């Protein structure tokens, strides 16, 4: 994978565009989330945003010195614990949502 190259103006524009589109998409998606599910929604988005573990891994690939390496290692541990507990808790909460008789599929 490439070494860090300074961002070009082109990169910045594309990233801004992605950011804007993702914002609108996010607002639309979340607007339609059932109010029943706001708590599991939070634990799910929490787990998803902990994809920052990827960023920590990228830094860990080329740490330059020990200080930087340890920052990245701690970040990996923190983000991984969020990823694991986030998806697991969401599953646990969702399993509890049932309609009488029919189970959760009804």
């Amino acid at each position, binding site marked *: 994978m490439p070494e860090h190259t300074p961002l070009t103006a082109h990169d910045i524009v594309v990233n801004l565009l992605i950011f804007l589109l993702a914002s609108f998409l996010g607002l639309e998606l979340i607007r339609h989330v059932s109010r029943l599910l706001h708590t599991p929604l939070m634990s799910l988005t929490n787990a998803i945003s902990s994809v*920052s573990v990827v960023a920590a891994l990228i830094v860990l690939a080329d740490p330059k010195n020990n200080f930087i390496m340890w920052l990245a290692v701690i970040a990996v541990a923190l983000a991984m614990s969020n990823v694991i*507990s986030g998806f697991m*808790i969401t599953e646990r909460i969702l399993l509890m949502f049932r309609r009488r008789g029919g189970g959760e599929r009804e």
Partner: protein
Amino acid sequence: MTTELLVQYLYVLAGVLFILSLKGMSEVRTARWGNWAGSAGMLLAIIATLLAYRMERYDLLIGAVIVGTVIGVPIALKLPMTAVPQRTAMSHAFGSLAVALVGTAKYYQLYPDIDRFTMAVLASEMILGYLTFTGSCIAFAKLQELISGKPLIYPGRNFVSLLVFGLAVALGVALVIDPSQSALLPIMIVCALLFGFLLVMGIGGADMPTVIAILNSYAGLSAAALGFVLNNKLLIVAGTLDGSSGFILALLMCKAMNRSFTNVLFGGVGAPVATTGTGEARTVVAYSPEDVAAILDGARLVMIVPGYGMAAAQAQHAVKELEDVLEARGITVKYAIHPVAGRMPGHMNVLLAEAQVSYDKLLEMDEANLLFPECDVAIVVGANDITNPAARTKPDSPLYGMPILDVDKARTVVFIKRSLATGFAGVDNELFYLPHTMMVFGDAKKVVTEIVTALKKA
């Protein structure tokens, strides 16, 4: 196909899975599928990254993953549902600290050749990340009741908070002007940490649903900012989705209280208010659980209004038992859920789901308010301000304008409460003194259980 290209495709796939994951959450039916889609996306993202980058120290990486698992798994398996708000605050703290640490690492890694755009994004990412970290820690401490839930109020506190924040921003700007001034970085970090602390210390316990949502949004946005720094589009997408989710939830919470963001963050609502009592002594008749059972016996429609008190007393299972006893007698039971009831968005729904209450019985505020006039008995379990008619009638009340559950329109109102103390907003509740209100004093779980026993005997 080169590895690099393959990795980019895997990232795109992971991004699509994250989006589908949130789409799945629109309905209970598809929600579990959504959670699995999200997990799959995460797995893909991690595998792709490990394919693309050779780690310098795999032992440390594996160690970190083990530590993360050892912390994460027991929390996920053992956590009682009443503690979900605390765990959410804690995960915001973990997530934002991770992002902030990577940002810091990135600064030192790139130092001293940092272009101004990267520095600007890094600085805002670090400020957001670190302030969310301390803010979430304080939110956790308040929810876990390690510290008082009352807002810390002192003269000029908003001035002090904003001064600290302004200083952090100013240092950030100075770093953008000259990114090689590395001595400024630790001061900026300390200011951001301090601001997060001051901000959430000044917010009361019952405003936590909004605060958690705002912190959620910040944690997501800082992750997205990190995506800009690393030119990693997956991170931008995932962080932005999280950011907009928190933003919408916070907006919904504010709307449900008829308050603005600014008022929640800087209003200091929930501080002990000097009682503006007019001096008139009003009396309240205390009823017994047996009296309630007698009233319930003749009812056709019963609505249960849960609040934080139900969570605090762990009364959700007793409430479900009450539902079963009533339904066995042919009485219809529904639950009226106010958006800000509890300590986080959706808190009541999760507790009731845990007690195996069927989710089609949980009514949102608008639906519930249509039903209250036809309701024979409304039972308020550990809620207060969200039922206070002063929100409709008294323009001078701090609650005025807040949408409430129209509990007073029910034929009989049963209020289960520990004492006559005022609610979070420090306002007396008119409901207590209405002729058709029955006050029952005691621990929510104990009282509900006693009502059930009395009903079974009858």
